């Protein structure tokens, strides 16, 4: 009876345990499962109209505005869609903590690269999807000002002029470009987004021209020998509104393009790893390093700018990799490649140091990412718990008003000398005054340079899975990736030194006691025999 009971218990035990094991061994599928995505081999070239046969595009265009008119003659009302986008307005209203609803965007937010666009529009607006934004007089309600081609050019020949306030180069054949339009490709987005900060990969660190024909090692999604995805495959677009946002400029946790939209929040066979997604962003493990092809700017010190050569001409100096390390117009730089990200808690909400804000922390936090281990998302600022994110931190030193204690927007660019533009005249005081006057903001006349930090959450250059982080990269005693993120207890990294000391002492004492006891027993029994 007892024996039967035992047998039943034992058999049931094994049945339960083995069954549980089977469940946990969900076989990994040969290809990653994704939602809302069409595999490359299943894509059909969309039924895009062949624009080359359209008569209206054969008439020689006098200027770029005429191209836009031609586009809008068929694509009616698209101008209204465009005019509702941030790509057009370079600002939108966002809630900033402690500041309420504020219009923020490239129009008015300062960074610690080229600082800001105000006063230098004619140059900066080379990256605006419009024609003619050279100063504050630009008409945002004029549909003819829209530049359709910069995004839709599939000919690869379209180019905006330097210092041309967004107009194309005179060399561009507008008719040829207009006949070869289509969905935006990586090149279209990249022409601005790869070149932010005045050079390839300067700003983001994870977005640069190498992605146009990149390898799988560089980025699993965009690799040409792989899925060859375009930007808009993830940055899903409806009515010209593109999903995704950049926290250098925006603040609220909305309209984001996420990994989960294709991969779900539990893409791994291992549940423990899926659980990490509650508090660890996909990017943290899957973007182990950035700037994997070309270097990215890590430090920009404006305070050294202005040194000219004997003839009074600006100096260019480059480091061994060919990256600038000194420019008279901009100061000193440090580039780096294959950079390990820094890791921060982030709940999707950012704040910004506005030009009107007093400086109260040094380094000045140009944009601050909100979040902490204890931020659970509920009844707090964001609906989602903070997650650990990989971030590029760009450190700088830039001009500020020592009396008003605000950052300064200097006027940097002008086509001519004597216009107070720093890049022409190398006079900070004049440039500061011109820039602040342009914005109708006070400038005391006293300035210095202050250290700044800016945070760029990383999203691109997703590594092949075999290169993603493994447990020990973080769950390790010393020098792990998360060594600096210590507002929480991380198994494998943290321990209670008193408990461990006590435990080890206890174990050692027990071992010693047992050995001593045993030795005495052996000794005495030998003696007796």
């Amino acid at each position: 009876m007892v024996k039967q009971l035992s047998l039943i218990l034992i058999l049931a035990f094994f049945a339960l345990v083995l069954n549980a094991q089977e469940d946990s061994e969900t076989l990994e599928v040969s290809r990653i499962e994704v939602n809302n995505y069409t595999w490359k081999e299943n894509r059909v070239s969309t039924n895009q109209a062949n624009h080359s046969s359209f008569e209206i595009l054969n008439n020689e265009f006098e200027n770029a505005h005429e191209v836009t008119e031609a586009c809008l003659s068929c694509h009616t009302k698209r101008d209204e869609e465009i005019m509702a986008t941030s790509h057009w307005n370079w600002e939108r209203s966002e809630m900033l903590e402690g500041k309420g609803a504020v219009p923020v965007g490239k129009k008015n937010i300062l960074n610690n690269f080229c600082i800001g666009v105000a006063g230098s529009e004619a140059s900066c607006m080379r990256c605006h999807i419009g024609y003619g934004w050279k100063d504050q007089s630009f008409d945002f309600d004029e549909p003819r000002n829209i530049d359709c081609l910069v995004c839709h050019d599939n000919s690869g020949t379209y180019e905006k002029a330097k210092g041309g306030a967004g107009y194309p180069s005179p060399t561009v054949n507008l008719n040829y470009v207009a006949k070869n339009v289509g969905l935006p490709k990586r090149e279209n987005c990249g022409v601005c987004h790869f070149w932010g900060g005045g050079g390839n990969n300067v700003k983001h660190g994870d977005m640069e021209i190498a992605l146009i024909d990149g390898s799988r090692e560089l980025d699993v999604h965009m690799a040409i020998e792989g899925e060859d995805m375009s930007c808009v495959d993830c940055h899903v677009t409806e009515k010209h509104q593109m999903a995704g946002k950049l926290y250098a400029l925006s603040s609220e946790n909305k309209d984001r393009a996420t990994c989960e939209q294709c991969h779900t929040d539990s893409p791994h066979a291992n549940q423990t790893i899926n659980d990490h997604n509650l508090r660890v962003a996909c990017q943290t493990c899957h973007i182990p390093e950035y700037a994997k092809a070309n270097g990215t700017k890590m430090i920009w010190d404006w305070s050294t700018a202005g040194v000219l050569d004997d003839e009074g001409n600006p100096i260019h100096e480059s480091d061994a990799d060919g990256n600038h390390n000194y420019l008279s117009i901009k100061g000193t730089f440090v580039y780096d490649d294959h950079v390990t990200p820094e890791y921060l808690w982030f709940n999707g909400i950012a704040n910004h140091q506005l030009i009107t804000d007093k400086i109260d922390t040094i380094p000045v936090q140009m944009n601050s990412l909100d979040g902490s281990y204890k931020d659970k998302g509920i009844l707090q600022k964001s609906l989602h718990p903070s997650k650990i994110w990989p971030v590029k931190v760009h450190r700088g030193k830039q001009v500020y008003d020592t009396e008003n204690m605000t950052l300064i927007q200097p006027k940097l660019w002008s086509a001519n000398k004597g216009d107070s533009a720093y890049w022409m005249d190398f006079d900070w005081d004049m440039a500061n005054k011109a820039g602040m006057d342009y914005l109708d903001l006070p400038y005391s006349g006293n300035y210095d340079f202050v250290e700044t930090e800016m945070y760029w959450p990383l999203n691109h250059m997703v590594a092949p899975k075999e290169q993603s982080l493994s447990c020990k990269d973080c769950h390790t005693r010393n020098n792990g990736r998360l060594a600096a993120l210590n507002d929480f207890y991380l198994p494998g990294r943290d321990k209670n030194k008193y408990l461990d000391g006590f435990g080890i002492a206890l174990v050692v004492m027990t071992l010693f006691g047992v050995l001593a006891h045993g030795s005495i027993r052996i000794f005495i029994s030998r003696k007796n025999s």
Partner: protein
Amino acid sequence: MKQVYIYKFFERFWHWMQALLIGILMITGFEIHSTYNLLGYETAVNVHDISAWAFLVLIVFAIFWHFTTGEWRQYIPTTKLVKAQVDYYLFGIFKGAHHPTKKLIYNKFNPLQRIIYLGLKVLVIPVQVISGFLYLYFHYPLKGFELDSLELVAIFHTFGAFMLLVFVIAHVYLTTTGHKPLSAIKAMVTGWEEMDDETIRERMADDIEIALLKTKSQFKGGSGESEILDNALTTAQEKAGIKAILKDNKFRDAISSSGVGYFCISKEGNYLEVNDSWAKLYRYESQKEIIGKHYRLSRTDEDFADLEKSVEKVLQGETINHGEVKRICKDGTFGYHTLTLAPVVTDGNIIAFEGFIIDTTDKLLAEKELLKKKIRVEEKLRSKNT
């Protein structure tokens, strides 16, 4: 030397499974704690998780087993003899003294074991299970039930791990303090523990005393008989120090299936009372056949003299735990059993004596067969050699 069956089948399975799982959990757990690198962190975590679930299932089964079999009573703590035990491990063991406690079927743990094992069961393992669950499911501060920090959980879990490690070291060492260095481990593997004759005799005596209960529960009739047994019971209880156990019905039932024979014989030597088991062991069809007859019937002539001497002593007030004796059954065949004899006292006068018998015939016959075989083999070998 003799073998005594101590650990039942499931008990042994449970013990070794638990040993295996605790070992795995310990090895992987300390790797997760970054104490060393062995299997790789991910493997360690996965193995730790799976073993934790297996352990949980095992715990559920073990709890079920402990309660259905009543074995949980083995863990009721007692302070009796603790000091003697400590003295033994600190001094006596070096002088070759006997361990102050005995290992019995109904009382197989000594007081230290009871305390330590109970501590493991109700303290350390629950702490590990609960903190392990918190580790698995509530490690992130999230909505609902949540933890603001994993630190406290980690402290408890690590503390439990150290306790278990210390326990394992001491436990493994103490297995060597048995009759022979490996006899305790051998017993845990086979269930049979090697004991010397003296220990077995003591063990049997104790088991018989506990078995008194069974007989008592079989008496349904007169209050006089019940009283006799009550006295005997009290004696046995006091001796065994297991009052809490004997009061329990389940335990009595367990004893009632053990087949212990009871007899009560008058001062003059005539059977007053025997129980069912006794009658069966002596191959009587009913108890009535023997009542009123003399106990001389139960022995061969030469053995009877021995018994008479014992009875004399018992009638003087002594209690005797006999070793193995040979009985003559009704049909003239022989059987073997162990025997206890105790006086029955009423108003200060010994009016009868009573006792219990536990059959050992099967075992003895088996041993004899083995011996015969051994002799045959030896003879064969000898003839071959010559």
